[in-house]
């Protein structure tokens, strides 16, 4: 009797677990797509009069297929991930720390042995749309094929043609270093089945042509959600929280929904366009970390019409509020070093600030020489986690190519974790709405990859 009771109890427990697991999987599987918020009907491109794909009308030299290919490659930001810092473009090898181990981007130059020189068009399209290599192996979704799947075949092949026109580089990427079971590529087939819609872009006639172009750029080429949308346990994007902000590559990718207080709802169109195109907007701060790369390799090459289209589209997603961000941004700090909010914070923070930071940022936070150094109003200093402030201190902001005068040096080599925690706490207290309370340990973790 007892045994039977026991068995049924176990069975019940298993039942609950199974049902729970199924529920979770279903919850994930039924996770809305990135454009589920659009209620108006969508149609195939062939049934749509506009031209949301390809390259924009204002792209100079657009008749040249290589110009088109280069533009799309930039819009898809391929170079950022497929190049090591200081390495040969597109030769791969860049490391990506994930919770499951380290991945390395492959070589996508035309070298036949170590790159993709021998891939056919169909193979390339399959990789980009479905995350499947010519040898049938599955790609990890660090490669954002769930976004690229929206791209038209034409656009994908234009990219391929452009890559083929570049110098081949013979260079093998290091082998991935993943823990079991994540080193089992076949598992990604399951992941894809759930999370890759494997669908080309569809237009929404009810919206403007500009909006549709913006959607193609933001959701497909630009794959913005890959960083700005939080992920679920299975590393798929949780579009219920679309663009509400997440942590990517150790940096916080902030809320880019139109929420007025914690998103970009209060930003003017000019601010948004400038931030995307130049990596910087007056009184909004400068793009750093992965966003800096997105600007460097991608966004700053886009035409004004495309930047405008992205802004239009971003404005239309549902506003979501981030509860962990203060609802207002702090104004300028006082001009006197001993005024303001930071008096109670670790004296070491002030010592470092007055040594290494104030020359550019000023005691007010408004910058001494150029607005590029303005801290006031930037999201990073108004983020009580202090994460991006620490990251930017550790690794700086590299100059954009051709603009060598705008950058921030890195201080990670010269200052200890405790000192960086102190100065980050000081900076958020002095210039932000709410001070961070970082410890040396937290800085150490960020230093080691987040």
């Amino acid at each position: 009797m007892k045994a039977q009771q026991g068995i049924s109890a176990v069975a019940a427990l298993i039942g609950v677990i199974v049902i729970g697991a199924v529920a979770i999987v279903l919850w994930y599987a039924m996770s809305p797509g990135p454009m589920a918020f659009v209620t108006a009907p969508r149609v195939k491109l062939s049934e749509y009069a506009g031209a949301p794909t390809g390259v924009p009308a204002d792209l100079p030299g657009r008749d040249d297929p290589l110009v088109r290919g280069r533009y799309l490659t930039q819009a898809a930001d391929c170079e950022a991930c497929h190049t090591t810092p200081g390495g040969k473009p597109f030769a791969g090898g860049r490391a990506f720390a994930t919770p499951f181990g380290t991945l390395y981007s492959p070589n996508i130059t035309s070298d036949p042995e170590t790159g993709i020189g021998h891939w056919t068009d169909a193979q390339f399209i399959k990789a980009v749309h479905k995350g499947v290599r010519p040898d049938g192996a599955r790609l990890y979704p660090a490669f954002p094929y769930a976004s690229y799947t929206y791209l038209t075949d034409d656009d994908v092949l234009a990219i391929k043609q452009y890559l083929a026109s570049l110098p081949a580089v013979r260079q093998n990427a290091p082998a991935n270093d993943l823990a079991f079971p994540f080193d089992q590529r076949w598992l990604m087939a399951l992941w894809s089945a759930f999370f890759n819609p494997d669908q080309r872009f569809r237009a929404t006639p009810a919206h403007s042509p500009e909006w549709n172009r913006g959607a193609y750029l933001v959701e497909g080429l630009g794959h913005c959600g890959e960083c700005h949308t939080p992920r679920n346990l299975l590393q798929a994007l949780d579009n219920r929280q679309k663009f509400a902000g997440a942590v990517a590559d150790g940096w916080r990718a902030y809320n880019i929904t139109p929420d007025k207080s914690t998103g970009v709802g209060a930003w003017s169109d000019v601010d948004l366009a400038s931030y995307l195109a130049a990596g910087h907007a007056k009184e909004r701060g400068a793009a750093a970390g992965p966003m800096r790369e997105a600007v460097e390799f991608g966004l700053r090459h886009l035409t004004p019409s495309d930047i405008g289209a992205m802004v239009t589209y971003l404005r239309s997603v549902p506003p979501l509020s981030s509860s962990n961000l203060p609802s207002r941004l702090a104004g300028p700090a006082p001009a006197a070093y001993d005024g303001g909010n930071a008096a109670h914070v670790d004296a070491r923070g002030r010592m470092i600030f007055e040594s290494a930071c104030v020359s550019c940022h000023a005691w007010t936070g408004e910058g001494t020489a150029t607005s590029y150094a303005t801290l006031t109003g930037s999201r990073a200093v108004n983020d009580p986690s202090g994460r991006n402030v620490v990251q930017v201190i550790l690794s700086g902001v590299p100059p954009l190519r051709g603009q060598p005068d705008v950058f921030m040096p890195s201080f990670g080599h010269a200052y200890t974790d405790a000192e960086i925690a102190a100065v980050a706490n000081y900076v958020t207290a002095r210039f932000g709405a709410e001070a961070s309370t970082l410890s040396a340990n937290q800085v150490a973790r960020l230093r080691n990859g987040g």
Partner: protein
Amino acid sequence: MLELTINGEKRSVDASPDTPLLWALRDVLGLTGTKFGCGIAQCGACTVHVDGKAVRSCVLPIGAVGERAVTTIEAIDGTSAGRKIQKAWLDLEVIQCGYCQSGQIMSATALLAATPSPSDADIDAAMSGNICRCGTYVRIREAIKQAAKAG
């Protein structure tokens, strides 16, 4: 061709607007008292005054200067704070190699003009952006205090 107001004079500068003021001063106008030390606002050797405030000229593009008045070490004796600082510097024999000292004197003068009797904390706040590789900090601190007393 840009027009700048330097040490009370209008000067035309033939250089692109993104040229930092430091290099316009040194290489175009021949005002070499302002020194190059790092180029990234980390050492203070290039400090000048822009409307009386100490600014690192190595990160200030001439295109961003506008109408504001630039004062360099060559004309700092035109201000009373500047003269006091220079005198204290010599009286206390602050200087060693001297390379950082144009910048030190510009920072100290701006401090003294704004804060006539600076505390140690005031001095730290105003002077810690200026590196002296010869290590003259002890005397710089004393000299600022002495200049303040002379006030």
